[in-house]
């Protein structure tokens, strides 16, 4: 009897987590898939079936938006990493006593609502606004130049909004690096550049991976930046899902597109982990 309970103890202890996952993840996910396959309309209700036509319609009509979303997501994630890494590195290695102050300053803009921050960029970047208006009146750029409604406005917005989410995990990873390892590299005649690329970057890989998950997944599904900063030709898949759901009452299509997005994201993450190796990441993390 005692052996039995000892055997089951870990499972019993994990029960709350399982319950949580079931209620907040498995059930919603199942109902979303069910709705994607359902037939019917919002007036008469939906009945469960195995109708895959919303998937094929979603793919044939909106594959361009899928490609675009992953492109924007990837580009914005890479740019964010390039900007965030030096910031995190500097805070972790040279922040000294004021580390927490710097981190606080970094998250300070996030005390303002997401949508308001994006709207602020719309204001700053507007054609006759603070930046472009000044440059135009100085004659430095042609009158017709505009940044809003272009894909770079959308990618820029994504980068801006994900910066802190990348700095944080990078900072944690860099902070944890044993400084004696870096010194050992120097003692073994590694130049600063070699020490950085061969020691510091591999040791911060878990931070790079965690940040990638946070930023890439959020950015691919984002619709606010494209909605406010974008124009025709910058619609992302999140916008299509939002429109289908709220404006067009096309719930099965919205559910099918959401399922497809989720599946593609899982494939992307799997490929990333496979390429860079989760084992190595875990080794370094340990």
């Amino acid at each position, binding site marked *: 009897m005692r052996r039995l309970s000892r055997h089951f103890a870990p499972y019993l202890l994990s029960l709350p987590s399982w319950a949580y996952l079931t209620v907040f993840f498995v059930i919603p996910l199942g109902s979303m898939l069910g*709705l994607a396959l359902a037939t019917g309309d*919002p007036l008469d209700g939906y009945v469960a079936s195995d109708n895959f036509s919303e998937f094929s319609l979603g793919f044939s009509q909106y594959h361009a938006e899928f490609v675009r979303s992953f492109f924007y997501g990837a580009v914005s994630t890479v740019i964010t990493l390039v900007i965030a890494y030096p910031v995190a590195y500097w805070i972790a290695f040279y922040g000294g006593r004021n580390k927490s102050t710097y981190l606080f300053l970094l998250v300070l803009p996030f005390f303002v609502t997401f*949508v308001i921050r994006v709207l602020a960029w719309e204001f700053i970047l507007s054609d006759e*606004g603070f930046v472009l208006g000044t440059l135009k009146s100085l004659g430095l750029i042609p009158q017709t130049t505009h940044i809003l*409604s272009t894909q770079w406005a959308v990618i820029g917005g994504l980068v801006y909004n994900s910066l802190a989410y990348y700095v944080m995990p990078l900072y944690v990873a860099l902070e944890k690096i044993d400084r004696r390892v870096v010194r050992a590299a120097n003692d073994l005649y590694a130049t600063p550049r070699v020490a950085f690329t061969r020691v510091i970057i591999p040791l911060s890989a878990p931070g790079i991976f965690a940040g990638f998950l946070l930023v890439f997944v959020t950015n691919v599904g984002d619709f606010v930046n494209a909605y406010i900063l974008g124009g025709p030709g910058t619609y992302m898949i999140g*916008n299509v899902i939002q*429109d289908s759901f709220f*404006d067009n009452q096309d719930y099965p299509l919205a559910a099918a597109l959401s399922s497809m997005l989720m599946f593609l994201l899982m494939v992307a993450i799997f490929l990333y982990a496979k390429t860079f190796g989760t084992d190595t990441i875990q080794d370094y993390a340990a």
Partner: protein
Amino acid sequence: MSKTSLPDGQNLAFLRGLTQPRLSRGEFMRGAAASLAAMALGGARQADAAAVTDWNGWWEAQKPTNEFIFANWPLYIDVTSDGKDHPSLDAFTKQTGISVTYDEVIQDDPSFYAKVAPVLKSGQPTGYDMMVITDGWYLTELLLQKFLVPLWREKVPNFDKNAGNSVKNPSYDPGNKHTMVWQSGLTGIGYNPKLTKREITSLEDLWDPAFAGHIGMFSDTNELGSFGMLKLGINPTTSTPADWTKAAAVLRDQKDKKLVRQYYDQSYINALENGDIWITMAWSGDIYQANSKGYKDLKFVVPKEGCSIWHDNMCIPVGAKNPLSALAWMNYYYTPEAAGVIEDYVNYICPVPAAKDYILSVIKDPDVANSPLVFPPESEFAKTHEFRAFKNYAEYKAWVNTFSPIVQG
């Protein structure tokens, strides 16, 4: 009214009216609550109240009440300067003894529909005796599901006596069986003459390569599709799916030639104000509001090919507790006095033409009374077209599938 001269900016009475229309009827980013409500799919619907078949008998059985709960959009009725009282509602209470609970709860049609539809589907009362819904898919959806009480027209004689022709027998509710218009409005062209460098008169101007990258169109497929058809000389109200395809082609062409800056919701007005767009589809009320905010250059024009007209409609949801009071309010609203008092504040298009004389002679506000946008002459109404009223969900979906890919491309 193809060229409306703007009123003198010094006239405070006029500006007060113009600066306080209801909020834009465009679509806001909607909250998660609404999305959850919209998820209430299928299930048992049309229970108790909606199962009524003999509406005459139902009306006969109603007892008069001294209460009335009215759901409306924000800033869509007269209000005293301290913001506390609504003189028209007070006068109604004085005249009839019915006290009014006035709720400004409708921000836009989809989210309000998402709020009331699950309640109606479960056969419960919404708690409202009257709500104001714009003509479009959501109103049609309420009608198709029999969620609106057919009106007892004999109790609203003032409608037949005073209603303007533009609000009688609308395409979406033939014979005004379920709805009566609260206010109407126009979708025309808004522009900044300083940037376009010429006056705008035609829909062709929205396709002018000279404005490439500075043209705004609406993302609402009803609005967008209707403009595509007007450009082709097709009447959107009576259009067929073949017409929709043709309209989609010209709109697609406009987009492919990179003429369109963006497909906007209500945010187009900011883009017009700060110069991002020079010419755009626009709601008349927004341009007036911008004028009084200080953007005096902006102009509104009804293009010579015609424009769209939308109607916000009073209707009674099934399960209403005080339906006779709601009818009494409708009857009261369709008098020149009540409509005049409210119109002098709201300034969209008044459904009661006789209110013009009341505003002129009693309220003494000639700017509102003589504004061709508040009281358009009959000849101008001929140029306006209602949206296509959909017969069922399949038709609506076909429309959306025709025009949505243009917005989303």
